[in-house]
């Protein structure tokens, strides 16, 4: 289990690194002309590329973040492992649902 989580966290990190960079550059580019919902939706509506980009972002982040948080909680607290695992799985589900809901909303 630990080994699989370790590998999953590293692999998602490899995927996330360029996605985060592109996302940050996009934010800087997008706010240059003022930021409005209309402007964002104008770029993303009906654009399958952006939907795919942010879907991948959401899925990898929903895997990556809970694994890291689980490691931190395991180190910092004496909570039972089962509780920590449940918390991490819940966080992953929340990130996934909220993220994908946002992707659908802007598509």
């Amino acid at each position, binding site marked *: 289990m*630990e*080994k699989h*989580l*370790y*590998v999953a966290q*590293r692999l998602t990190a490899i995927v996330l690194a360029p996605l985060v960079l592109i996302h940050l550059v996009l934010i800087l580019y997008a706010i240059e002309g003022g930021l409005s919902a209309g402007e964002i939706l104008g770029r993303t509506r009906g654009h399958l590329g952006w939907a795919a980009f942010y879907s991948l972002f959401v899925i990898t982040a929903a895997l990556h973040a809970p694994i890291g948080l689980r*490691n931190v909680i*395991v*180190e910092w607290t004496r909570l039972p*492992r089962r509780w920590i695992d449940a918390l991490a799985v819940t966080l992953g589900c929340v990130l996934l649902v909220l993220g994908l809901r946002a992707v659908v909303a802007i598509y």
Partner: protein
Amino acid sequence: MSSTVTLERPLQVSIWRGGDDGRLVQYEIETRENQTVLDVVTEIQRRLEPSLAYRFACRVGVCGSCAMTVNGRPRWTCRTHVKNVVEDHALTIEPLRNLPKIKDLVCDLAPFIDTFKRAGAPFSGSNTRHEKPAAVKPDSPLRVAADAALQCINCAVCYSACDVVSWNPDYIGPAGLNRAWTLVNDVRHNRREQTFKMAFGEGGCGSCHSHGNCTRHCPVELRPSESIAGLKRAAFSGLPTE
């Protein structure tokens, strides 16, 4: 850091007395031209404090039993010259960190020894005396990898130096994982897969933060950090093969 030692000035030595609830006690002894930290402890026990408890055996850097914390760092006291570690003519000598204190400079090594079992470390061979010994070529990649980690004498200096061990008692620590790495590379070991699984279990190599304190402090200059990195790499590449 080290500073100049003058023979005219006595050495101010603070030594941990008691168990976990003990305290530092000050002693003053003569500064000598050539003295190791173990010489200092021995002199204090022989001349000033006969009830002082400490461990040593070989006195020449072979057995590793005289490991203590000297001015905040774990060291073999028999191989540590006072002039190299003294600070303003003062030394602070405590038992190894991360282990229960028994009395004075003696700590309980049992939790440390347990880490070897938790890392899946007992060697398990399947050959009997009636079979030929396994032929392991000295230059084979597995032997070379094991060789680099093999000379550990279980002195617990790395375990004491490790910050992750200090805040996470579940962590196996560098020595156990280093031993697991030698077994994962040992073709004669018939539980390589199980050893690897245990070394990667809860509190295993995934908990290492790669601080490198183990490698920095190892008195025989082993590199447990590299052994742990090898175990982590094997999570992607599978067990090393010839």
